[in-house]
């Protein structure tokens, strides 16, 4: 039965529907896997104590002849940024330790309604601030490809969980690359939908104009199936888009036959030259472009002159919004309270926030407070918002010429734990290719493109489409994925080291 954990969500769904495998068996297999390897990986902050009951209920309903969704009975890992009524939600922070939400985040509620079985909550950088999960208050997650390396961040737990076969699917959130960069370093698939495509209700806010919830999976089709479940308009989120979305799973299935690539115009950004990337990352990217070209795609050089200002604008807008959003952690209504004998509520608040927040969170709150303060507002925050307009225009101009834009998903493969921890600026640059996507609100996908020759670690390619054209990403992503898996003779994750063998990986 250990083979169950290596099935894709789509394959597992078929076996659940046919009765070959029960949801209880599938859920137990994944819980066993978590028990076996999560001591090493640390993808989970909390494992559900009633997942088997939920699975048994799905099995019963199926046996009763109820019409269930395609993913009914499939286990799901949930990033700890999404609040849940039956499991604690901490957003990776000490300040929310033990917090139990009175309501479910909409993507969680929709997953439950579709019959998915939540396995647990996954690790993340505190309040999603980071690119390595090293800023989690509960210790880092380890990359299943090499336990001494980072799994990316902030959603390193969700990416590592699917890469380590602890779950076939996971939910993530992406503010500047927190779904796509972990996908890149773990050899998995991650999608940041169009801003407003998936509800943010119940997603503990980092930067409200940038945050977007999305699917984490091992295949493009699996990501699409999950996106179909969680997406769509939600009156609880005023920024949620009111429109009918096509089936992303249908787009992925259609894309897999490769026809989508004939005549497809793929933009490559002149201002992101190969020299800005690790050699093996650039080589893998070029090899993928050659594959696309061989199938009839046209590679077009485009210019995005303002991308180089993206990281700077992001590190003004994000801290500004975060400093406001995190003001809610005031030690009054929820979260940590540290008593100050004889102190006022303000003393208690200031002390609680000093103790409850980690270094990176304090750094960004102070930076955001500075950027928003009188006298600096126009020069910093105001200018950053103008850069946002310029980056949107870069995308508009590019999409007048091409159907999708392709970039490497991140500059390097997984770096070693601790390597960039003392250099916040260096850490921020990990998201150079993903940040402009959030600033503009357009959708992006990262899929595995291969292993870097020099270190044997996974590399991802990112595709970007115009706003509301998420289906295009699934079509193109599935087309390239099919070509790559064919050329590898099997999924990339088949080449990852065996975890948990003889009491430890490697």
């Amino acid at each position, binding site marked *: 039965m250990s083979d169950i954990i290596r099935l894709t969500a789509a394959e597992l769904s078929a076996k659940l529907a046919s009765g070959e495998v029960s949801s209880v068996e599938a859920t137990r297999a994944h819980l066993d896997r978590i028990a076996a390897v999560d001591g090493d990986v640390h993808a989970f902050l909390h494992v559900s104590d009633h997942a088997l009951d939920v699975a048994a209920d799905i099995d019963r309903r199926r046996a009763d002849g109820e019409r269930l969704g395609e993913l009914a009975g499939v286990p799901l890992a949930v990033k700890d940024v999404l609040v849940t009524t039956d499991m604690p939600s901490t957003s990776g922070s000490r300040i929310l330790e033990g917090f139990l939400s*009175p309501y479910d985040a909409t993507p969680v509620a929709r997953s439950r309604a579709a019959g998915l079985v939540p396995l647990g909550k996954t690790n993340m950088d505190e309040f999603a601030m980071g690119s390595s999960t090293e800023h989690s208050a509960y210790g880092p997650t380890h990359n299943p490809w090499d336990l001494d390396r980072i799994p990316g961040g902030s959603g390193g737990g969700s990416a590592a969980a699917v890469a380590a076969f602890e779950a076939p699917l996971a939910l993530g959130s992406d503010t500047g690359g927190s779904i796509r960069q972990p996908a890149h370093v773990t050899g998995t698939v991650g999608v940041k939908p169009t801003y407003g495509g998936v509800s943010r209700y119940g997603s503990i806010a980092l930067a409200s104009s940038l945050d977007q919830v999305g699917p984490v999976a091992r295949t493009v089709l699996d990501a699409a199936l999950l996106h179909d479940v969680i997406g769509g308009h939600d009156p609880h989120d005023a920024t949620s888009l009111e429109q009918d979305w096509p089936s992303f799973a249908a787009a992925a299935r259609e894309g897999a036959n490769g026809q989508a690539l004939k005549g497809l115009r793929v933009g490559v950004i002149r201002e992101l030259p190969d020299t800005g990337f690790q050699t093996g990352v650039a080589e893998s990217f070029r090899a993928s472009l050659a594959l696309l070209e061989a199938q009839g795609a046209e590679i077009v050089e485009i210019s995005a002159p303002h991308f180089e*200002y993206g990281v700077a604008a992001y590190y003004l807008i994000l801290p500004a919004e975060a400093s406001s959003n995190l003001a809610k952690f005031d030690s*009054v209504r929820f979260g940590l309270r540290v008593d100050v004998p004889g102190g006022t509520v303000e003393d208690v608040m200031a*002390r609680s926030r000093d103790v409850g927040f980690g270094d990176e969170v304090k750094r960004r709150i102070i930076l955001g407070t500075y950027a928003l303060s009188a006298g600096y507002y126009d020069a*910093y925050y105001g200018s*950053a918002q103008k850069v946002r307009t310029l980056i*949107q225009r870069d995308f508009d101009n590019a999409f007048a010429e091409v159907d999708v834009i392709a970039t490497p998903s991140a500059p390097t493969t997984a770096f070693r734990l601790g390597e960039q921890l003392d250099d916040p600026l260096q850490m921020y640059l990990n998201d150079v290719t993903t940040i402009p996507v959030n600033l503009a609100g357009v959708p992006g996908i990262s899929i595995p493109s291969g292993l870097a020759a020099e270190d044997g670690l996974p590399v991802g390619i990112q595709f970007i489409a115009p706003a509301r054209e998420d289906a295009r990403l699934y079509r193109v992503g599935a087309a390239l994925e099919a070509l790559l898996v064919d050329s590898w003779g099997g999924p990339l994750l088949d080449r990852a080291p065996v975890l948990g063998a003889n009491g430890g990986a490697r």
Partner: protein
Amino acid sequence: MSEITPELVRHLGVLARIQLDDGEVERLTGQLSAIVDNIAKVSEVATPDVPATSHPIALENVFRPDVVGEMLTIAQVLQNAPDATEDRFKVTAILGEEQ
């Protein structure tokens, strides 16, 4: 060069309600100086003719029907409170002695 000083960082800590200790102030002063020097370049291209974007996909007048929504109970509202009494959040003194 930016003008991030320890005094400014301490003041920002007061504004943000984070009681930074001396070590944190010193560390943050250096780190913020480096970060601000790096991100200040946004002003190079932010010319007066460029409009600001606050929201990636602008929506206007998002309303819902004016009916009572799904409300939380008092017990739910208070379930995570560090301290509560008589259906209310409980805090320590609002004003200090000198106030």
